[in-house]
């Protein structure tokens, strides 16, 4: 490693020593559980972070028409923004079509992303149930949830997406091995 990096590491170590308990609250302030809850929106593949609620494909069809179709097309296809449905079986072709159904490995990510980033002009504005409903609808467009289906915090993490096994981690940062050596 370069001397530049060594110096940086040395500096960082020195700084780390400054973080003794006596100094801890000289910077910032403690976060309260209530305010953490406001921002703690991430959803993990095991379902951790999913709120209580549920939504059906039928409800989701309406929510989608009202909030999503203008950009993503009536059936999650043909819109001006990302295509959400179809494309299964194309990933090894010369013109792969990456959609929720053909590419996304986790259904939980779909809930997380809709809740944090969609609809584009007013992210996070859908209710919990409407977010579950539109998640169910997009999954149904891909044949992953039946037309009369419903999703909630228990069922969503159990859905095995078609491309769940389609990802190979870079050996250097493989989550299954990265911190196991020590």
């Amino acid at each position, binding site marked *: 490693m370069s001397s530049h990096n060594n110096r940086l590491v040395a500096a960082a170590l020195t*700084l780390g020593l400054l973080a003794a308990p006596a100094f801890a609250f000289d910077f910032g302030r403690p976060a309260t559980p209530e305010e953490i809850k406001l921002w703690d929106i991430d959803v993990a593949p095991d379902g951790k972070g999913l709120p209580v609620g549920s939504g059906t494909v039928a409800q989701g069809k309406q929510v989608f028409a009202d909030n999503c179709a203008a950009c993503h097309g009536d059936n999650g296809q043909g819109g001006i923004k990302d295509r959400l449905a179809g494309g299964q079986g194309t990933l090894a072709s010369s013109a*792969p079509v990456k959609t929720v159904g053909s590419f996304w490995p986790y259904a939980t990510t779909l809930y997380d992303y809709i809740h944090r*980033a969609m609809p584009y002009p007013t992210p996070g504005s859908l209710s919990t149930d409407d977010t579950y409903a539109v998640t169910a609808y997009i999954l149904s467009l891909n044949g992953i949830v039946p037309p009369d289906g419903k999703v909630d915090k228990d069922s969503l993490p159990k859905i095995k997406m078609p491309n769940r096994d389609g990802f190979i981690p870079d050996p250097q940062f493989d989550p299954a091995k990265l911190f196991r050596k020590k």
Partner: protein
Amino acid sequence: MTSKTQIESPPRPASVSRRGFVGGLSAGVLGAVATEAAVAQTLAEIPDRGPGADLGAHSERSRFVKIDRIPEAGPGKRNVDPSDAINSKTPHQKLVGNITPTDLHYERSHSGVPDIDPAQHRLLIHGLVRKPLVFSVDDLKRMPSVTRVVFIECTGNGWENWKKADPDLTVQNTHGLVSTNEWTGVPLKFLIGLSGKEKNSNWMLAEGGDGAGVDRSIPLTDEIVNEAFVAYGQNGEPLRPAHGFPMRLVMPGFEGNLNIKWLRRLKFGTEPWMTRWETARYTQLLANGTARQFQLRMETNSVITQPSGTMQIQPGYNIISGLAWSGHGKIAKVEISTDGAKIWKQAQLNQPVLSKAQIRFQMDWVWDGKPTRIVSRSTDEQGNVQPDRQSFIAATGSNALFHYNAQQTWSIDEAGRVRNVLA
């Protein structure tokens, strides 16, 4: 002045100076200078001196310098309405040295540029920590800081050339999604110390305060814990809004997307969160249909910026100059071929060569006027060599979209016109 005008302009008089050093330069860096008035041929034609404009609160570029980023919407989608743009590229063909001017640092944003009042911005640190904490920008500025020159590169850099080469592309089009700035901020290690991270936490979620709430899972390797920092300064001043004002994560050597802008939350956990940006985006689809995930480090790379796409050179002396960088550390050497990758010569590296920063290389060249191809390849201190395009595509396929670091070849025809080609 666009490169097109240069090509369409009538041939210059074949004076010695124009065919030599000056001619070569005028097509490149000085090409950023607009020639609105007649060119002064003799010293007698230089205008008289006189009092200039009033002094200002800040300085603008000369009115003779036209230099801008280009907003684009994706591979092959150029000249788009700004509302459709997803990135804005650095004009490397018009820049010198190593540091990208702040307003020309490339930009990639996923939900526009938020207008954040720093008084109303907070950084929350929580999850597997003993003391969840909230920090203001002023809190960060009171802490010990580091300052470091690093490149940040969008993983989409180079994506124009995965499948084909548009001959009309400039180096701004092909490689404008990497830039180098000096960043100042608080070491991640210091913030980890303040909050008392639990020993079993090896992953950190970093989230932005933009409309998309862009978030990425970051493995807490020793390298990352020792080198990452939360920056509030960029080239000596507060961050620009497009680059994350009032604070962003800086991850030297890693995917641009990990350098979360408008940073507002760091959450500590035990496993990656599998966010949209590390599953549906920023994973590399291989030829067999599987996708490479968590390819977090940016590879060894280089590109010749002078002469480069759409420029025109003259026979005789030409300086070849470009930029090289690697997420693995320092650049050890850059080689240049002026005969289509048959014979390679080592270029000079301009000092200082900094780790995980773009550095400039150059080499003297006398062009004999015959059509040829010029190409550069970098090697970093870890021994990683920038691959030739054929080997790279053979290993990766052409659908990966991200992490393109194959050698960039420019062809030069008998008229001296420089064009983007695939080798």
